[in-house]
């Protein structure tokens, strides 16, 4: 029982610490690496960028060039390929 109360206190204190300390620290003093000030970035921005790097999503994104010619070519090639494959199977 005492252990449970102790764990609860630790969890509550950790949550309070996280809520109170982290945002203040990030806002008031930017983190330093080897003495060089780092550009401040929101944690979610860092998270999504890291995720995209790990999964190699940028290669997939390159297909959406925004150029209509590329889109038409891609649609035409994929259409013909799928048509042939689906008819053959």
């Amino acid at each position, binding site marked *: 029982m005492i252990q449970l109360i102790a764990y609860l206190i630790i969890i509550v204190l950790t949550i309070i610490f996280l809520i109170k300390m982290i945002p203040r620290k990030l806002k008031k003093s930017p983190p330093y690496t080897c003495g060089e000030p780092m550009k401040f970035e929101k944690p979610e921005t860092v998270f999504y960028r890291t995720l*995209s790097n790990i999964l190699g999503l*940028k290669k*997939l994104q390159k297909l*959406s*060039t925004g150029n209509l010619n590329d889109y038409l070519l891609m649609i035409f090639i*994929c259409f013909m390929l799928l048509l042939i494959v689906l*008819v053959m199977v």
Partner: protein
Amino acid sequence: MLAPYAVPLLICTAFALPVFKNEKLIKAIAILAIFLSLSFVLSSSIEVFNSGTKVFAVSGFKAPFGIVMVLDKFSSTVASLILFLSLMIAAFSSKLVKERVKEFYTLLLLGIVGSLGIVITGDIFNMFVFTEIMNIATYALIGFTAKKEGLEASFKYLIIGSVSAVLMLLAISLLYSHVGTLNMADIISRIDTNDIYLKTIFIMLILSFCVKIAVFPFYVWKPDVISGSLEPVAAFFIGVMTTTTVYVIIRIFYTILGIYYSTWFSIIAIVTMIVGSFLALLQKDIKRILAYGSISQLGYIFLAFSTGLAFQGMYHLVNNAIIEVLLFLSIGTMLMHKKMMEKISMYAFLLGALSLIGIPPLSAFFSKFFIITGLLEKNLFIYAIISGLISIVTLLYYMKIYFMLKQGEKKIYWPIIILIIAVLLLSFVPVWLQIFKGVEVDLLARNEYVSEVLRP
């Protein structure tokens, strides 16, 4: 049966008269016309669910010689859904669209006429004609803002839509030359599904519709088009047009060809799901994230239908359409209030997003749950695992949007409230299961469809 699309068609034609100058009057009449159309469809749907399929021969010529309108459980459910969503979009647009109001509502009504026509017609060539009516209205609606992005999006969709239309028309012409009829029930009674020539024609027809709704690998243009259009137009594009096109593909698969399982289309659905959700993670613009998200959700719908899970697919189709419209209209409030969102819209967005992620007890949780359990029952473990994992990626990209939102002015828009209620009502599973299982029974009964339409 003609009334549901005769009313919006008459009203949008009447808007050409110089009498209609008052913008408030135009908005009110357009909303009233959609409401009337919805009432007609709902009353017909109740009849269909109670006493079976309704067939109406236009000009008195019966099928297969004349053009027939067919309202069965599947078409009446989809027609009710698209009219309900159109009503919400029209009501919301009344606050957002301040310039060229007459043109906007004329085009919106024309788009509704096209989508309703597609759903109700029993003739495959009429389906093509109504698809083009719907598309022409949409091309203009996408470029409605006349800003650079809008015009570019409209032009891209015009070209890609035209390519798809040419392929569609080619397939329909080949079908007519081979079978000698365009009436769907008559085609069913004449075709041999083992004929390689017919197989090629139908695959061509289905793929041309796949280009229109941006299924993998034809998805690349969709985010550009969505991000360039106004929010209500994007909602119309994803909620109404996509639902209508999915209806056509399912109608061809289930009713005309009698194919309930297709491994290749399941694979396409799975890849659509994966590519859509992962690319959504990479986007920085809210509308682009939502566009990729909608591509991913299309994957779930196609996966369900291509593995023979018709009622599960139908449930997710309805859920997805309502939630996507809710998400776009919630985001639309940001446009009205200088990138700020009022509290109710923010909660509405959260509700929609949480539902699509699959958080219980919200509606899309149940549809996804039914799809995954259905896949497990059919021993399609890999599909089930991927579907489950993609829900986690869905959580990540909706979280990304949530981080971008800013809370601002307090203004409540009733279409958003009604859509919230609709999402909550969709969570009452037993009622919907009964309806969607009825749709599934109707979809699988090909012979009954033929006998009803071709009855002398």
